[in-house]
């Protein structure tokens, strides 16, 4: 009975918990509620993934209205995997968030913060789980609005958070509007909003210019949402000025959901046979991904604030993700899917470590981490481990991602890209090294009384570091799911 309703419970549990938590007067209560709800949500997504791997796809009809008329939830290996990433990271962040949020947000806002967090959480899950194009837009709106607010809440620490959130709002709204214009246009030529139905009815409309315009709008709109270079300008500030816990959460999940939507529309809705797909991948995605990998990494080298540096690194990492898409091969999409997971782990660990530094020192700049190797050994060790993973050192998840990417580029015969992937990792070494150098080889400034971060922050951080290493050694599970997802997207029989 419950098993049957799991798909909708995945969304409804956090969605209903959000207004409930708005009744909480004290932050502690709201936090407990959020923690329990997110953990339950994580359990549900695990159950869903297991079921999907066993049975193939699951379909759930909302209001019991048959598919093209009502809204359908459709879960397969692709979105079950992304659901797992989002709910897992959402749960990991909460124990971490308590101390960090108590420090970084005005006391009277803390209870409602968790409401907003739950909304964002539910929104992201909702846009991933659904099989209906318009429903995806609605939930994208929920998550986006909540994210803008969450970012703006960084204003207590730094007033620039407000303008960062505003920029993000403008860009995000343009992205969402483009997306909904695209959906409107495909609705115009097909008369349906259900993704599976869309895929069927778009067959034979290859030459239809309205569909082409829709395709362009959707790709550009989601591209904006996933910070496809050069449409990434909102991202660094948003990540840098948001409260630390929020940075961890959105860095690990928000762009992942957008990448998922991109994959869904490119491969499931428009399909591999769509005439301009190859064109888009080769002439738009490949160069933009490569540009992101190099330009954003290079910008990261010059950043003084570590959060901002990591944010630019995220843009570069999204370059890897998009590069995987651009190969349009099973290996390439496996690389993308696995990198979604892996990048969430490594950036989660890194941003958590940086958040701990922010908690103790009020800021995380190259200056403020000087000598921290000794005063905050566990935090800095976690940063180093996360950094190694980001660079792609063997035995970390970063290596697995790059391995698949390089394999995909060699497989497609584009070996210069493999060389570029390796080269761009070397740039990563430089900016991570700057932090390590400051933390371990430089003396702390006089008169600093630093303590190690509280255990409630260290444990989730190290949990993620452990995951970085575990899934870096035993990539069996992730690569199996990612491979299954890639085959599904490309309509290849398993």
């Amino acid at each position: 009975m419950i098993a049957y309703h799991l798909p909708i419970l995945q969304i409804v549990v956090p969605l209903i918990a959000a207004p409930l938590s708005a009744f909480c007067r004290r932050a502690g209560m709201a936090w407990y509620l959020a923690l329990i709800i997110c953990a339950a949500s994580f359990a549900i997504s695990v159950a869903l993934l297991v079921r999907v791997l066993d049975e193939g796809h699951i379909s759930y009809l909302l209001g019991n209205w048959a598919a093209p008329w009502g809204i359908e939830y459709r879960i397969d290996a692709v979105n079950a995997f992304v659901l797992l990433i989002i709910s897992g990271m959402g749960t990991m962040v909460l124990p971490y968030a308590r101390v960090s949020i108590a420090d970084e947000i005005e006391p009277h806002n803390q209870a409602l913060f968790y409401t907003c967090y739950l909304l964002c959480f539910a929104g992201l899950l909702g846009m991933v789980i659904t099989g209906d194009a318009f429903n995806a837009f609605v939930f994208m709106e929920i998550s986006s609005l909540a994210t803008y607010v969450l970012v703006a809440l960084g204003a207590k620490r730094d007033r620039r958070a407000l303008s960062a959130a505003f920029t993000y709002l403008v860009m995000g709204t343009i992205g969402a509007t483009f997306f909904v214009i695209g959906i409107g246009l495909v609705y115009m030529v097909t008369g349906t909003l259900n993704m599976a139905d869309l895929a069927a009815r778009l067959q034979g409309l290859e030459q239809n210019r309205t569909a082409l315009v829709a395709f362009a709008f959707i790709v550009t709109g989601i591209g904006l949402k996933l910070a496809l270079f050069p449409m990434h300008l909102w991202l660094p500030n948003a990540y840098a000025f948001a409260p630390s816990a929020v940075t961890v959460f959105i860095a690990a999940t928000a762009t992942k959901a957008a990448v998922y939507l991109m994959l869904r529309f490119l491969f499931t809705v428009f399909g591999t046979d769509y005439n301009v797909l190859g064109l888009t991948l080769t002439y738009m995605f490949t160069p933009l991904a490569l540009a992101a990998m190099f330009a954003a990494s290079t910008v990261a080298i010059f950043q003084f604030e570590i959060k901002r540096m990591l944010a630019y690194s995220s843009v570069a990492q999204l370059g890897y993700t998009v590069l995987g898409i651009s190969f349009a091969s099973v290996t390439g999409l496996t690389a993308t899917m696995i990198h979604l997971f892996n990048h969430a782990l490594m950036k989660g660990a890194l941003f958590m470590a940086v958040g701990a530094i922010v908690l103790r020192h009020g800021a995380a700049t190259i200056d403020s981490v000087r000598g921290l190797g000794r005063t905050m050994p566990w935090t800095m060790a976690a940063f180093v481990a996360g950094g190694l993973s980001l660079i792609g050192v063997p035995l970390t998840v970063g290596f697995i991602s790059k391995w698949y990417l390089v394999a995909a580029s060699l497989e497609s015969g584009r070996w210069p890209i493999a060389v570029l992937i390796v080269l761009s990792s070397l740039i990563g070494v430089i900016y991570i090294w700057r932090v390590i150098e400051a933390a371990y080889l430089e003396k702390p400034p006089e008169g600093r009384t630093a303590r190690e971060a509280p255990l409630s922050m260290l444990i989730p951080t190290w949990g993620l570091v452990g995951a970085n290493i575990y899934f870096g050694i035993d990539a069996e599970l992730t690569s199996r799911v990612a491979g299954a997802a890639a085959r599904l997207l490309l309509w290849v029989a398993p």
Partner: protein
Amino acid sequence: MIDTTINFALLLFLAATAFSILRRTTLFSVVMLSGVFSFVSALLLVHLDAVDVAFTEAAVGAGISTVLMLSTLALTARHEAPASRSRALPLIVVFLTGLALIYGTLDMPHFGDPSAPVHTHVAPRYITATATEIGIPNIVTAVLASYRGFDTLGETTVIFTAGIGVLLLLAGTIREPTGLRITAMDHHLVLRVVTKVLIGPILLFALYVQFHGDYGPGGGFQAGVIFAAAFIIYALVFGLEAARRAVPGRAVRWILAAGVLMYGGVGVVSFFFGKNYLDYSALGATATAGQHLGILLVEFGVGMTVSAVMVSTYYAFAGQNRPIGDEEW
């Protein structure tokens, strides 16, 4: 023929308004013009037979958002800063993109074409089956609240999120009430009397729109906005403090959450009857009775959240700074 003429006239008027908004630098007139723009759009929507949308557009676009923009104006400058960069490049880019888009539209189905995919695939079922499956005459409401009821839950949550955002970002900065504030429009006797007379009917109308949504144009969104409009008028004329005394901020916050809870909760109830989420047919003796009840309840939830968000947004905006004095109007 007459239809086409009206359409063209309205569209032309819209374009003219938009263009003059672009040209203005006095923000006050820009706000007023955008109110006009919304009104014309509402008219256009009425003419397209989308009366539900027209309702919302008129109430939100022309009414409440104008008020909110005016409150914002009170906090910022009255004049737009002159553009600091050349407009040539953006203009060229926009022009080219526009051309490309127009070229793309040439393939669209013609306006009102009965053989367009929109009219042949999903829509026919809504038109034919609503009467038997849902049992209400307003197909728009049926689609909105039942067939695609989950989208509407999502939209309500979007509004809820916006409300939470306003509370988080603005409510904390509301200033302590001062004596000065209450004197806002005390000596505008005519206004006070007219407002007092009007508020009752407006509230009643809101209730009508709310509960009559199954049969005629209307529903939770429109009703919520109208309801909120009544309050905002009251607050404008009698001062924020008076409005707060009538409905305190805390109550608004509760209603805000309760609306979404109500909508989401109705969906949960169907679980207990072994039905899928948001399957209202379980709620009544017969399927149509259940649908009817369900739609009524969720629309009420929407109305609660929408009106609460509007009111709390106004509270938050208007509480930011000194009220606008008479001499400034």
